[in-house]
């Protein structure tokens, strides 16, 4: 693996800069929106005196750059502010909401790569045939349909009309109460398995299925389309023909030599679609009442809860940088020509 020792350190430093920039922009943007957050903090029946106190407490009476300095100092001390809505530390809120989102996004990405890539490869191997045409059509549809629309349609069709899958929430509260299920890591799939709680596990799985599928539609279509076109391209490469002449069997050429050439770039692009998927996750969470970051961010936005909004934005930035680093490392590991 040609990854130089300083590379990861350099990337981490660059990521830190990016995150700092995102933080500053998010902070300034929330402050220049013409809203009066002190009303929210002080409550609906606050007196002029109370509003003034709220402004002082929230440092809204100081210039923006002073506010930003205060925020940064607190931020690095691990104090991301108090949510104006929940009155709890933002960091606590975020860490509670994060596993729910991660569970959803990871499930979606697993689905996207486990289904999407083989689908694309299968399509490429049937290039020009009826099956290829059908897959091509479906994936174009999948890549171009808005997530929230599919979410609403599937929720209504499968959850409400057909009643096959639950239409929302991570787990049935009643089941939690009856079986005494306790979240440990916040990943309910893992938690229920650790506790050997099969009824909750099945319920969690069933509830995860629909939102994860909806969320996976875009990355799934993307990876299917990319692996299809890359595989078609790779199959026309000269080395495929030379291996054939030299007597290497077809299946080994396809599933060893061609496949790796085709999927290395797919994995790279899946990483890049992570950002889009997180945004998708926010909408899917709002629709499926999923208590994750998106739901939290949505609620925060609707109630001018600035510290919470900034916290979500920064957390997403951190994840996005981390994923991109991992993707680049994986790409370098798969393709020896990539030098990092």
């Amino acid at each position, binding site marked *: 693996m040609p990854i130089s020792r300083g590379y990861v350190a350099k990337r981490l430093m660059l990521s830190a800069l990016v995150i700092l920039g995102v933080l500053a922009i998010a902070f300034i943007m929330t402050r220049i929106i013409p809203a009066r957050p002190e009303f929210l903090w002080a409550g609906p029946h606050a007196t002029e005196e109370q509003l003034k106190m709220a402004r002082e407490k929230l440092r809204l009476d100081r210039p923006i750059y002073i506010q930003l300095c205060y925020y940064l100092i607190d931020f690095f001390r691990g104090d991301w502010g108090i949510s104006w809505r929940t009155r709890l530390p933002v960091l606590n809120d975020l860490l509670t909401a994060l596993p729910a989102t991660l569970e959803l996004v990871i499930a979606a990405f697993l689905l996207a790569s486990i289904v999407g890539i083989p689908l694309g490869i299968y399509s490429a191997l049937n290039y020009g045939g009826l099956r290829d045409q059908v897959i091509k059509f479906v994936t174009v549809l999948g890549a171009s349909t808005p997530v929230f629309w599919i979410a609403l349609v599937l929720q209504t069709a499968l959850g409400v009309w057909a009643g096959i899958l639950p239409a929302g929430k991570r787990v049935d509260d009643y089941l939690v109460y009856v079986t005494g299920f306790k979240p440990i890591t916040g990943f309910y799939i893992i938690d229920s398995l650790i506790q050997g709680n099969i009824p909750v596990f099945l319920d969690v799985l069933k509830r995860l299925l629909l939102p994860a599928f909806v969320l996976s539609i875009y990355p799934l279509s993307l990876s299917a389309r990319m692996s299809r076109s890359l595989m078609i391209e790779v199959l026309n490469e000269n080395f495929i023909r*030379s291996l054939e002449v*030299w*007597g290497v069997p077809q299946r080994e050429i396809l599933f060893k030599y061609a496949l790796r050439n085709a999927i290395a770039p797919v994995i790279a692009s899946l990483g890049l679609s992570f950002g889009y998927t997180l945004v998708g996750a926010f909408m899917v969470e709002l629709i499926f009442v999923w208590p994750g970051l998106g739901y939290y961010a949505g609620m925060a936005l609707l109630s001018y809860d600035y510290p919470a909004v900034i916290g979500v934005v920064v957390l997403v930035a951190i994840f996005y940088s981390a994923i991109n680093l991992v993707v680049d490392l994986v790409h370098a590991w*798969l*393709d*020896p020509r990539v030098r990092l």
Partner: protein
Amino acid sequence: MSGGSLLKVLGLTINYYTLEGVVKAVRNASLCVNRGESICIVGESGSGKSTLGLAISLSLPRNAVAEGSIIYEGVDLLKLNPLERQKYRGEISMVFQDPATTFSPLFTIGEHLIDILRHRFRVSRDEAVVRARELLRKVQLPDQDRVLRAYPHELSGGMLQRAAIAAALATDPKVLVADEPTTMLDVTTQSQILELIKVLKRELDLTLLFITHNLGIASEVCNRTAVMYAGVIVEEGSTDEVLLNPLHPYTAKLVKAVPSLTKRRERLSHIPGMLPDLRNPPAGCPFAERCEFTTHYFDYSPVKHVEAGPGRRVACILYSGVKA
């Protein structure tokens, strides 16, 4: 050295089915290759020489359809089912033009060699590694262990072509088809690779089918030469005779077009006109349009091959009167 024909191509016609139409890449080609000889197929790009090589080494692309027969040791290779064909793959091995794209960029040279050896001889990985090292030594690559561990982009063109020759020889072939193996290399490397192929041919008692557009290389490597033009073998004979005493007007023009180091000419001679469109090739002589001997009352019926001496054939109307 010699001993009867090993490979016989009879009336081979190869068509590519493309979106732009059917390209008739090779038309009614016949060629007899004797055991242990080296034969050159000479022609310009698009003359069908590479397609002929691919057909012989059983690796035509999927959109190509071949008719006629390629008889190797009494078996018609074109009539084999996929399973039987897999058995003959490697019997007739091939070295390709561009060494940079011959290997998969994501796997080491060793991985390629090991997979070839494992499937051809059903040997273990360890045994395959030993044999791979031996092969690399045979193609005169130094530091075999390093080459085995190297990825294609880490080797120079010449080294890669040597590795490709090692891979082609890994199957222990009887026939080696070399499709312009020196075209993409620089001149000094070219001569080294040519020398290596000649040495290996002698050592391993290979039958060599050398495809090139370079008449100089043809004269250096092969004892027999077949000239192809627009999918048709227009002339065939011993290399010396074909080059020194070309019968077909096309061959004559080709020989004249070779730049000389010793003689300085005013202009390099060239052949006016272009290759005919192979989607709709002329029914008669494919070279008629560019030939100086073409007359107004030219006969456009198909040209027959004429025997013009021992092992000498030419497809030209000029000679049809000689011995009909």
